[in-house]
């Protein structure tokens, strides 16, 4: 869609939120990712949407796929919903490569995700793959410091037209015990595709409005508190060039997003009933909210200054390291680099000994 996206400067009224909401041109841009095991129909979903929606609302469907049409990196479809109350709503639909092998690229697509559709393959034989893929989704999100509990998520049980499929109840009990929205689908014929898309679109925009997105989850508050006691998932190795500016134990992946939401919501509008319960639950076990918020703000700033170093790193050793203050030049060599260096010393040593032996001969 070359001409439709207006340049930000043309009608810059207010501000721009970089991740998904662009206030400069009053654009709301949401990234929705279709996740699921290989061959479950994620790309088919996008193809159907691309085929059926009015050409004026959609951009080009870009597929980074192998010669056999298996997604290699992602499929991308921009959809322009148009103006609603002065806001121009845009969705960017992405799929991930489903094959286990492509986890590295799959994870990259999740960066900055606003909403998720989990496309499960309903066939009985594929149940294990569904479970594995869901677990992989949780892990990959944790890697970025996102909590799956806080992200809008809907399930799509695809391939309902095949003969040997699990019942919806079965799929629900295994994949979706929390009872989030789910849809039965036959993506090749388009059944359930738009229902899924409508549902996730609404959830994502509700979240942008600051509504509580997951009302079904009554136990949310408790889970948050439990999650806070967990050690943090540090960020990917790549971001470690500027080290984490605080002991990692506090930078809980789950704690961070929840706090942002809470603090935002409280300032802007009266807290909904469920939410206020959540507050009271938290304040019982935690320092008062105002303190928490301050803590969060400093945490946020530090993280921003430190290069958004929340997220994944599989093995963390650096949590006890004293951290430099935000803004300082990173002097501490990240763990990954240190590890490689210590590794490379013995290797060189053996090489040297080998040559010495050769020379001696």
């Amino acid at each position: 869609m070359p001409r439709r996206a207006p340049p930000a400067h043309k009608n810059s009224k207010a501000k721009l939120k970089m991740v998904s909401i662009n206030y400069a041109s009053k654009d709301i841009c949401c990234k929705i990712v279709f996740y699921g095991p290989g061959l479950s129909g994620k790309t088919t979903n996008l193809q159907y949407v691309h085929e059926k929606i009015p050409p004026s609302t959609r951009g080009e469907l870009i597929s980074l796929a192998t010669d056999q049409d298996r997604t290699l990196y992602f499929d991308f479809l921009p959809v322009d919903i148009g103006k609603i109350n002065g806001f121009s709503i845009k969705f960017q639909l992405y799929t991930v490569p489903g094959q286990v092998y492509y986890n590295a690229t799959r994870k990259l697509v999740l960066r900055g995700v606003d909403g998720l559709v989990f496309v499960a393959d309903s066939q009985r034989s594929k149940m294990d793959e569904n479970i594995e893929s869901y677990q992989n989704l949780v892990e990959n999100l944790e890697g970025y410091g996102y909590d799956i509990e806080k992200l809008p998520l809907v399930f799509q049980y695809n391939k309902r037209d095949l003969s040997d499929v699990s019942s919806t109840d079965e799929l629900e009990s295994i994949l979706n015990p929390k009872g989030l929205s789910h849809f039965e689908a036959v993506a090749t014929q388009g059944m359930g595709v738009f229902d899924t898309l409508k549902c996730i679109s609404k959830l994502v925009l509700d979240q942008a409005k600051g509504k509580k997105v997951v009302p079904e989850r009554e136990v949310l508050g408790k889970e948050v508190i439990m999650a806070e006691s967990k050690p943090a998932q540090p960020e990917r190795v790549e971001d470690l060039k500027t080290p984490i500016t605080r002991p990692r134990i506090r930078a809980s992946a789950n704690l961070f997003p929840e706090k942002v939401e809470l603090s935002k919501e409280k300032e802007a509008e009266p807290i909904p009933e469920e939410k206020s319960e959540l507050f009271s639950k938290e304040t019982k076990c935690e320092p008062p909210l105002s303190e928490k918020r301050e803590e969060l703000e400093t945490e946020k700033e530090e993280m921003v200054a430190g290069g958004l170093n929340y997220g994944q790193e599989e093995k963390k050793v650096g949590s006890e390291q004293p951290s430099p203050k935000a803004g300082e030049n990173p002097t501490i060599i990240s763990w990954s680099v240190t590890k490689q260096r210590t590794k490379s010393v013995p290797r060189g040593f053996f090489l040297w000994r080998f040559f010495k032996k050769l020379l001696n001969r």
Partner: protein
Amino acid sequence: MGQEYLVIYEEEIKKIEKILNRLIKNSQAKCALLVDKDGHLITRQGFTHSLDTTALAALLAGSFASTKEIARLVGEPEFSVLFHQGKKDHIHICLVGERSILAVIFDDRTTIGLVRLYAKETSEELTTILASATEEKRDERTKMGSDFSTSLENKLDDIFAE
């Protein structure tokens, strides 16, 4: 959402655009795009009308992300500059701060060296602007109006109709 929002005000967008324009003028490039690492276009300048900038932004971010992973695998924290050479047009991509990417598209009227020089300079300038945006507390919320949900529902029904 587990995300960090960064709010940039209009005046900053204008400053950024001014800087990008200067870059294009100095380096004689065709156009310049500033893209968020998540794949959202922040702003663009120059001859972009023939380009599908939305898709370009998503692909640039994807390309940069995968290169970053490659860098990690070979033991580099990040490759800060990428360059793609074509027959006519070339593209120079460099990192701006921690979370944005500057892409400059240029042709044979200029040279890679010139583009690289000015892109580096621009990247530093933009970094300070974006850094000041992150340091300030800008907790802005969307005010979409009360009838937003119903309007949205109708609109979605219209567009996503089979």
